[in-house]
């Protein structure tokens, strides 16, 4: 078995040392966001300013990175969340992680603050800290072009340099988007991390791995979602489905459908703007869109960006969405938080409270506004702080659409209430992924469980949160988990009686789902291509004894540890909340049930999680997971 090798780098003292990860820690936390949370918990004290020199930034990989396993290029950044003050994990499909491993390190633990703008260069095991004076001020692609193409790069744009709270970090054209990763790098005067090496990734059982991966790739290519729909339409294909289910945020989450949704749909994008599809390294799904902005081929928008810069600001122009997407990436800002903040600013103007020059339906000045936010110019300095900050300053908290301080993604939860529960309980804030993405079974997937039902949603939310935590923590793209949904259901379609029955069955299974976590890992002592092939793949890569049950418990462990970190930072059950627009104002005026009834779902959620009424993991749960803090 090969144990991970991290480097601990102090930018103040300009020193780097090896940081050993022992076998127990490796088997318990594996890598990625789960190991990142462990290290963050161990190496930091509560109460730190996320942008202070004492704050710790972890950039790490997972055993699967660089092995060629499907969709396994994803690496992680863990840090104290700039937006919420709790845990932050941010995931990216760029090549930096793979190259870091080839350079000889599984992760970097970065502390301190460089005296002047700098970049880290990690080449074949050697770590150098170099001046980034000439790169400071460059946008994301420009700074990456300063290094050889074959190098893995992770950079920030001007937004990170100016400490925009939702600044992101960019690797290639992929982004570690959420929570302010770019601001943390900027606060350390760290413009870039660059890596290159020739070390081959470690694979315990190479022959077994090659055979299994070949089968898994075929499986993904045969699946209707990963083999047909995602390559053809990308995630933007969700627009019409979300709209049909009243889950497409419109006019700052005032409504769930947009009359011009078709004009910004994935189908319209495919028909009129798509140059081709593409994807992350080693990904057979190829969901990325390639579009043209000012005649240059660039990465196209994901569903989140389409929703938040489309319907949510009442813009029906795909060219505007493409341009904004590109600009946000170049300047280095999270399109979700940026879009959500701008929508809130539009509402403030509409209410006559504050005028930032932005209005619903107006797009002619949008790129100018976005640039000013990135550089914190004039009044736009305030928009750089996010909607929670703005609401504190100007009021209208009910309309600031965030959870714990992080803006919500592009799923309106009032007719997808399990998604609402997920947003509220997500450890990193209003995230649809860390929140469990129950929209998949309520409003945007092939199966539709009653979107307004509260019974059964806590159990499903926990299951999805833990499973996605494991998949993400192991370094795989979450889209690889789509294959858990049987192919034949897509061949039947959402209107078929059997598919509808599956929706009812999911809710009816809440009793079983409610106790499954008490029985892990023994409940699922096997591996299966049809369930989570990630478990078997990890076993073949690492040599660790891994079953589906252990894999899912790994995710549960990570989720609980994130929670414990948040509580240590002073968060409580009160922070598992949503803005009043979503909990008190029915989306459908004629149906009072079209709100997120959090108080009906939270107690059961805590119970299924094995947490107390205060929302903190019980001693029994912590013992079960080996979390002895």
């Amino acid at each position, binding site marked *: 078995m090969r144990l991970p090798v991290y480097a601990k780098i102090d930018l103040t003292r300009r020193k780097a040392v090896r940081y050993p990860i022992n076998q127990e820690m490796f088997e318990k936390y594996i890598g990625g966001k789960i190991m990142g949370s462990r290290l963050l918990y161990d190496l930091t004290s509560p109460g730190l300013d996320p942008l202070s020199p004492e704050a710790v930034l972890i950039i790490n990989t997972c055993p699967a990175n660089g092995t060629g396993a499907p969709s396994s290029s994803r690496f992680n950044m863990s840090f104290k969340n700039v937006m919420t003050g709790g845990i932050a994990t941010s995931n990216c499909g760029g090549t930096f992680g793979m190259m870091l491993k080839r350079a000889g390190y599984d992760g970097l633990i970065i502390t301190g603050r460089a005296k002047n703008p700098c970049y880290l260069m990690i080449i074949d095991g050697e770590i150098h800290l170099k001046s980034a004076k000439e790169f400071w001020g460059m946008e994301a692609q420009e700074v990456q072009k300063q290094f050889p193409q074959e190098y893995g790069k992770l950079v920030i744009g001007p937004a990170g340099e100016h400490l925009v709270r939702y600044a992101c970090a960019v690797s290639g054209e992929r982004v570690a988007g959420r929570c302010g990763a770019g601001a943390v790098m900027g606060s350390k005067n760290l413009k870039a991390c660059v890596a290159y090496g020739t070390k081959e990734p470690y694979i315990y059982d190479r022959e077994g791995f090659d055979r299994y991966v070949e089968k898994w790739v075929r499986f993904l290519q045969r699946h*209707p*979602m*990963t083999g047909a*729909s*995602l390559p*053809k*339409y*990308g*995630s*933007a*294909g*969700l627009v*019409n*489905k979300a*709209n*049909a*289910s009243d889950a497409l945020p419109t006019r700052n989450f005032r409504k769930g*459908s947009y*009359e011009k*949704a*078709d004009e910004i749909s*994935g*189908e319209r994008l495919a028909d009129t703007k798509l140059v081709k599809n593409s994807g992350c390294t080693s990904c057979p799904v190829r*969901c990325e869109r390639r579009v043209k902005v000012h005649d240059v081929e660039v990465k196209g928008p*994901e*569903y989140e960006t389409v929703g938040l810069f489309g319907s949510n600001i009442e813009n029906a122009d795909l060219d505007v969405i493409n341009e904004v997407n590109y600009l946000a990436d170049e300047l280095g800002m999270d399109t979700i938080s940026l879009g959500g903040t701008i929508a809130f600013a539009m509402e403030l103007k509409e209410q006559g409270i504050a005028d930032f020059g932005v209005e619903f339906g107006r797009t002619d000045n949008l790129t100018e506004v976005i640039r000013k936010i990135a550089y914190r110019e004039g009044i736009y300095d305030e928009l750089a702080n996010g909607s929670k900050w703005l609401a504190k300053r100007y009021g209208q908290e009910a309309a600031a659409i965030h959870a714990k301080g992080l803006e919500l993604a592009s799923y309106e939860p009032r007719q997808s209430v399990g998604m609402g529960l997920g947003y509220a309980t997500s450890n990193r804030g209003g995230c*649809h*992924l860390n929140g469990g*993405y129950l929209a*998949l079974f309520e409003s*945007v*997937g*092939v199966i*539709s469980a009653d979107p307004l039902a509260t019974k059964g949603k806590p159990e499903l939310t926990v299951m999805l949160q833990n499973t996605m935590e494991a998949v993400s923590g192991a370094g795989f793209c*979450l*889209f690889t988990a*789509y294959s858990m949904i049987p192919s034949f259901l*897509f*061949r*039947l*379609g*959402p*209107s*078929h009686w059997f598919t*509808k029955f599956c929706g009812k069955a999911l809710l009816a299974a809440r009793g079983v789902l409610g106790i499954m976590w008490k029985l892990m890992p023994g409940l699922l002592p096997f591996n299966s291509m049809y369930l989570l092939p990630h478990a078997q793949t990890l076993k073949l890569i690492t040599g660790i004894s891994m079953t589906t049950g252990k894999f899912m418990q790994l995710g549960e462990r990570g989720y609980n540890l994130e929670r414990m970190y948040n509580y240590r930072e002073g968060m409580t059950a009160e922070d598992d909340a949503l803005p009043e627009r979503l909990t008190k104002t029915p989306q459908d005026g004629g149906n009072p049930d079209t709100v997120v009834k959090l108080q009906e779902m939270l107690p059961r959620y805590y119970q299924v999680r094995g947490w107390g009424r205060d929302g903190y993991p019980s001693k029994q749960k912590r013992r079960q997971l080996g979390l002895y803090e």
Partner: protein
Amino acid sequence: MAYLKYYGELRELTGAEQETYPGDDIKECLKHIKTVYGKEAYAEAKRSLITVNGKGILNTGNYRTRIQDQDEIRFLPLCGGG
């Protein structure tokens, strides 16, 4: 007349982006597709996400959803995201 709009594979199977049809409900529209374009197009249409004026039919009567003059019925491919 209602408007039937086809997307994705259904567009290829029907050779059309849209057409008009005077049917009373979704079931009749599906029968029309089967008669004119064949079984494969019918199967593809049935498993699509079917919307009437932008709203999914699951909560409006499924295949029995009534349609009226000028209604827009879309047969959309199922998509993924996250």
